[in-house]
């Protein structure tokens, strides 16, 4: 899901989603608790944003159990990583054209 006239990926550009995507980009995968601790976002916020990212195939979601505790693990897909790379390159081009 992209791009209005200025070419910025609005799905990633939203501040909360940008934080989530950036934190997932620098790791292989992470669970809900990790993202909650790292971003400071509320549970509802994370859930809704991750749903949108999953719907766009930017993120894959895996639900498992660690003993009796549920664990929801998120991982950027190849599509998501490419989209983030494109987003970063695009912003770099805007902010530092030299």
């Amino acid at each position, binding site marked *: 899901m992209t791009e209005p006239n200025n070419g910025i990926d609005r799905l990633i550009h939203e501040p909360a989603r940008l934080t989530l995507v*950036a934190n997932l980009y620098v*790791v*292989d995968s992470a669970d*809900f*608790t990790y993202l*909650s*601790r790292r971003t400071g976002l509320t549970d509802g916020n994370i859930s809704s944003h991750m749903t949108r990212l999953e719907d766009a195939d930017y993120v894959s979601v895996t639900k498992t159990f660690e003993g009796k505790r549920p664990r929801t693990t998120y991982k950027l897909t190849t599509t998501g990583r490419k989209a983030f790379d494109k987003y970063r390159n695009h912003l*770099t081009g805007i902010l530092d054209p030299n």
Partner: protein
Amino acid sequence: MTNQHDLKALEQEAFSNAYSDGIFDLFVGISLIWIGVAWLWLPDLAGLAGILPAVFIVPMIEIRKRLVEPKIGYVKWSDARESQERRTLTQMLGFGVLVLAVGVGVFFITTQTDADTDVLANVVPALPAWLLGIGAGLFGFVSGVGRAFWYAAILSVAGGVTIWLDQGPGVGLFVSGILITLIAVTMVVSFFGRYKTVEAS
């Protein structure tokens, strides 16, 4: 903005934060105290004192995982980070072998040869703390964990004080262990105070 530099800093900060609980530091501090105690008061066991921490390191890792992961969540680091960790472990093991070789060499020179060993004999008591300090510094350099440099400084000063006070190696290690343990306890209390609730994911 999230440029390449910031992403590197983000990853490093995430990694450092994941080990801010202090449990591993506590293990290091208590190990140093134990080795120092063994050297000071259990000289017959001094040579074997280092084996006990090595035996407990695997259970410690598992215990830490069970205590910390529910608090800060689960993360699988990138392939690059895990490769770096494997390299760090290999380098630390190599350094440990080097330390052992140096220790054996010094022992050989001071006890089995006619070499003039006065200078060497004066610094030998400081060698364990100094070598561990070098190890801590190397670890800090390769892993990016900043407080390892403080531990390196503590161990280095402890080695110097050992020579100054004309004491055996146990004193420096014992005092270093106390200081590192105090730092670790502060970290543990802070961590578990900060992450009181276990969030379901």
